[in-house]
């Protein structure tokens, strides 16, 4: 009967399939590719005394190995009382070569981003010093007006608000947080 033949054929096919599996070359380990999207490693605040442009104060918040691992290094801000500072925020990815300037992208997407400034214990008032295409503030440039001698914190928050950014002064509750860093600040 034809059956015997077919049976043999099938058995051979099965054995061949088994051998193909057993003898097939092991694939080499796939290489680890470094192709990560940009991260924010560094947030630098630079403050220039509006009355004396030679007087520049800056502080950097830096976590070059990314979230986790080594703790971030955070520089302190020391400001003089009763002065107006012109503030600039620079955001970098220092793991990239050359270093990627993330704040340029924030500026390009100004209509979808806004910075917010918060303080605890320090006598500072903040105002915006830049605008997006719709005439609303971004906050990459701002003015910090210091008051009396005090010690506390300043927190810089960047919100990503695609489609939900509102007219000034803006809404800190809209969108999601892109960064939130805190600097120990002394006014003396």
């Amino acid at each position, binding site marked *: 009967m034809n059956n015997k033949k077919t049976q043999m054929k099938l058995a051979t*096919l099965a054995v061949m399939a088994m051998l193909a599996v057993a003898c097939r070359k092991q694939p080499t380990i796939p290489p680890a590719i470094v192709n990560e999207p*940009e991260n924010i490693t560094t947030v630098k605040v630079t403050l220039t005394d509006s009355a004396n442009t030679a007087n520049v104060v800056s502080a950097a918040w830096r976590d070059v190995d990314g979230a986790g691992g080594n703790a*971030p290094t955070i520089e302190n801000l020391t400001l003089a009382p009763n002065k107006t500072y012109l503030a600039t925020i620079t955001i970098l990815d220092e793991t990239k070569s050359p270093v990627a300037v993330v704040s340029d992208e924030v500026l390009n997407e100004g209509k979808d981003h806004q910075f917010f400034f918060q303080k605890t214990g320090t006598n500072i008032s903040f105002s915006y010093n830049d605008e997006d295409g719709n005439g609303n503030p971004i906050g990459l440039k701002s003015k910090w007006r210091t008051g009396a001698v005090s010690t506390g914190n300043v927190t810089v928050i960047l919100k990503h608000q695609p489609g939900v950014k509102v007219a000034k002064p803006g809404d800190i509750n809209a969108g999601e947080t892109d960064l939130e860093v805190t600097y120990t600040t002394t006014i003396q």
Partner: protein
Amino acid sequence: MLAAFSLKAQTNCTYTFKGSIADAKTNAAVEATIILLVLQKNAIAQSNGTFSIDSICSGKLNFFIEYLGYEIYEGEVEIPQQKPLKILLVSKTTNLKTVVIEEHKREEIGALNKTTINSIELSKVQGNSIADVLKNITGVNILYTGNSIAKPVIHGMHSNRILMLNNGIRQEGQNWGSEHAPEIDPYIATNVSVVKGANAVRYGSDAIAGVILVEPKKLIDIKKIGGEINVAANTNGKGGATSGILEFSRKADSPLKARIQGTLRKFGNTNTPNYIMNNTGMEEKNYSGSVGYVKENYGAEFYTSSFKTEIALFRGSHIGNLTDLDKAFANTTPRPEFIDTFSYTISRPKQLISHQLYKFNSYYYNQRFGKFNFVYAHQNNNRQEFDAHMPRGTYGSASNKPELDFTLSTQTADFVWEHNTKKGFSGSAGASGMWQSNSYMGRNLIPNFLMHSYGAFFIEHYVKNKIEFEFGARFDARQMNVVKRNRNNQLYQPQFTYKVPSATFGVVFSATKFILKGYVGTAFRAPAISELFINGVHHGSARFEIGDEKLKPEKAFNSSVNFIYTASQKINFQVEAYNNYIVDYIFLLPIKPPVLTVLGAFPTFAYKQTTANLSGLDAEINYTISKIFALKSRTSILFARNVKQHNWIELMPANSWGNTLKITLPKNIFAEASAIYTARQTRTNANVDYAVPPADYLLFDCNILKTFETKKTKLTTIIGCNNLLNKVYRNYMNSFRYYADDLGRNIYLKIKLTF
């Protein structure tokens, strides 16, 4: 039929009605449905044609057997049976009728605690996700991420602790994540079953909680050119599914058979009782095909399936940091920009997943040596996750790239030998191998790896009169080579080796008043890649998670007792008590200080090991009130303890109590009304979760089913409603409970045409 009712109340109702069904002409097994109309019971014969229905009273029992293309078989049997019935179904073209008596058939090997969803129940839930299909099984819960990502939970465990077999193949996706749903199309299945308990011996490692089997109709059972068309429509999400199956067999006895199948699912934004949740739609496209040369004694088959889905994630659930999360809790309704716009558009954040399976299997049966089975399969799984925010820099600006992109490629080979039944002994032995590689693009979450696993097992089953014994053992070895870059960008290539034995022992005792099943099993699970290496913020949960390379495999020691008792003709109940003792159970322990990142401080959790004890009770009572009304009540209770730390294991399903009133009306109309109560989960630890577990809730569901039959076709129509009262609630097992209410009322229509 009335005769069964006129029996005295004290008749013994602990018997089992057993038999097998085959084609009268070809003697091939038929997976027909056995209907006991008076008892409101039905069952489907296994693929080998056997069936077994518990809790039957002594006396005369009337039954029907139906299967498409065959004459309906109407029979009567005297219970207790002397021997299992062998029923031969006559194809509609001929008209023979015979009842032949055959020898005793055993329980299915290695699956003493198996629950199968019957075809009627299956048609009510097909069109939902595979996990939703399983939720009517006592002891099974669902872990949700929103409404379109659902994972089954068996006795409190999910993800890597459950093994899913898709058409006999271990489903290998990135199943370590709670928001990674199984990539399986429920419309493929004619049989969906759950085997609860540690089942490593028969099914392989990782099955420490249980096994889920999704099985299409066997090719050999295709007898003609036929098929199935399914349509499901839902009001919530204004979407649904459509699916079709076409089967080919020139003649009933022609060995060359084929089948093709395809499914489309699409939903728009879904709504809670009070608002629409934006960006919660989904789209799914699946197909499968099978061709085989199958004979009773030998055969070979090729099967392929493709699953592709795009799932939108509710924008309000994608938070940047802890402050955002706290604000989301504080709002009773999500922010206005996240709600009240209906659309089918899927935008960021979203997931794009595809899964391909290629399978070849062949079998050979020899009268002297038994049956040999060989299966080889190749699977390719790709998972892409898109954050709310487009990636920055050159990586993202070029295209709309995903932040996470994993490709998992798996090959498996299994060889199983089943020896012939001899003097009550039956059994099988086998060996299996698995080769797997993972590669990623985008954000560093889990590293690349290459894994080999090898296993060998045997299992023996012995039947003597009223007692059945089963014993099995297995040994598995696994090696995993990992390649990753350290924080200082240096190549790091650790190697992991796991060698673990497992065993199982089961007894079934069928006494005159009851059936008692006892089962003891062990299983192990090697740590998942995420548990070893994750180091970062888990999006959506605002947690910083830290993996541990030194984690050892989990070892589970599972015991369960199943007691089936028929109190009278009208009342029967089933209680399952189980205890799962797990050594080196892997869990997330909150640690201090929190990790400080550019997004602020995150609560930090590290993967640690402890001894866990998961114990619980699943109970079910059936009460037949009259010929028309019947009640079914189910209760599930679970205690999950961290034995070493003397506290609770988090995120376990709360106690639940479900009641269903079943109404059988004339003219093939069946209606059901259910009330399901879910308690508040109180077994949690203080200060671990961000929000207290949500309040208890009571949900009402209902449905009505009618079948229309002609000589060649069968039409099943179902109209139903979930959350009938549009109750506002939040489910502890849904990770979106932090951000939004659960789904509101949904009215659905399902139509199944079989031809």
